[in-house]
């Protein structure tokens, strides 16, 4: 159990919690979309500090978790080729493919390198003109513009030995899919702040109106999350369903126009399979035909790959908010961060990893009154 005293500003946190408690007259279920927010919530025990009845459901917002198994297997196949330097963000290394992960490929002699930025991969390509350099381009709308820039630069500078395996995903279609599911219990959304830093808020009013659901753009620090919850609850209690921005210090309505322009140039919207969830229409990006030369799927023949998910893993339900991680049979026994069955246990933003890391080992505890734990 965490304590209010652990908040950076406990007084402000207490004030927000008091406001939420005063506003709530009946139970509400809210979904935080972003995996970074899930981590803050579990680490700070925000779910346990909320008044009875206000439930947080963890959303699918972890790019590492939702990258389809087929794409992971393609990455593994490309990384294992002689002559290839395979570059990736560090948190993809342990994501299990059908029968191995990138760590294994590296220990078997593959040249797998961890980069901090896609531009590092581009630099590696210029330094190794006789090798094929492939970058694993995954992530939501926050990561897509940097990756788009790397491809754009490769074309502009004529760096022909650089290609990207692209599996980018978009948040609004995922919100639409969550709301469209017959089992959906979500009544309000905390939208992912940094996604909106890039994309702005223009995609949300239509979603909020059509599903009659409040959407509040929320940051990922503890107080940001409490403020987001406060605003969603206030709307719900009043019967409203609008888009509100609780993270104005980083989110402008128009987002980042230069980044959006680059996205439109380099990528095109496509249907995308989400690991554990299935295909969501128009929920991803792939390279547009103009950049085909830099598309790793075209450069390497990796079309027919047979994939197999471990039967015990219930990450699909976890990602859709239908199951809490500690309700999975394998949680903490057959499945741990050291030997994960599913991607949600591997990624530092994954819900299963958050529960494991912060010791939510048993069945979910009933929310406690904040006053009783401070």
């Amino acid at each position, binding site marked *: 159990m965490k304590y209010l005293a652990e908040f950076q500003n406990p007084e402000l946190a207490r004030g927000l919690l008091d406001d939420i408690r005063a506003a709530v007259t009946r139970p509400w279920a809210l979904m935080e979309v972003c995996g970074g927010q899930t981590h803050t919530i579990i680490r700070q025990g925000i779910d346990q500090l909320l008044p009875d009845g206000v439930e947080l459901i963890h959303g699918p917002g972890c790019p590492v978790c939702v990258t389809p198994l087929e794409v992971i297997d393609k990455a593994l196949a490309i990384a294992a080729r002689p002559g290839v330097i395979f570059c990736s963000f560090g948190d993809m290394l342990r994501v299990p493919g059908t029968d191995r992960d990138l760590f294994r490929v590296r220990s078997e002699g593959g040249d797998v390198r961890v980069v901090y930025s896609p531009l590092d991969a581009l630099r590696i390509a210029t330094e190794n003109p006789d090798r094929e350099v492939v970058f694993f381009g995954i992530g939501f709308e926050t990561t897509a513009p940097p990756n788009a*820039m790397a491809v754009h630069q490769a074309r502009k500078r004529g760096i022909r030995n650089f290609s990207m395996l692209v599996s980018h995903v978009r948040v609004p279609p995922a919100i639409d899919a969550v709301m469209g599911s017959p089992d959906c219990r979500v009544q309000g959304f905390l939208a992912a702040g940094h996604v909106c830093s890039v994309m702005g808020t223009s995609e949300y009013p239509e979603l909020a109106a059509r599903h009659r659901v409040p959407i509040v753009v929320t940051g990922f620090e503890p107080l940001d999350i409490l403020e987001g919850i406060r605003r969603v609850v206030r709307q719900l209690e009043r019967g409203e369903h609008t888009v509100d921005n609780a993270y104005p210090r980083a989110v402008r309505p128009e987002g980042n126009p230069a980044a959006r322009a680059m996205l439109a140039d380099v990528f095109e919207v496509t249907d995308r399979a989400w690991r554990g969830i299935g295909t969501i229409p128009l929920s991803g990006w792939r390279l547009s035909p103009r950049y085909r030369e830099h598309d790793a799927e075209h450069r390497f023949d990796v079309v027919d790959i047979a994939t197999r998910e471990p039967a015990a893993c219930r990450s699909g339900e976890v990602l859709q908010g239908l199951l809490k991680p500690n309700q999975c049979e394998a949680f903490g026994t057959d499945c741990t961060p050291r030997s994960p069955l599913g991607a949600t246990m591997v990624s530092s933003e994954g819900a299963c990893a958050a529960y494991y890391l912060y010791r939510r080992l048993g069945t979910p505890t009933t929310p406690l009154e904040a006053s009783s734990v401070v």
Partner: protein
Amino acid sequence: MCLAVPGRVVEIAERDGARMAVVDFSGVVKDVCLEYLPDLKVGEYAIVHVGFALQRLDEESARKTLALFEELGLLQEEFGDPWEVER
């Protein structure tokens, strides 16, 4: 990888046809691309994600966020070497 960390611009230079900056994240210094925030100036703060400045941030909120990240060990997670972390 999903973390976006505020940092302060220390130096700006054109490199390989792109506007680049040296950015200080509480002592960790990284090269950052400014193509998406071309009018960012030395001394200003921005939210940086995978080596790209994505949105301006005022100094006070940037400092608060950085202090929090440092305390929680998230800076190490973001900038540390994953081969090392694994061992």
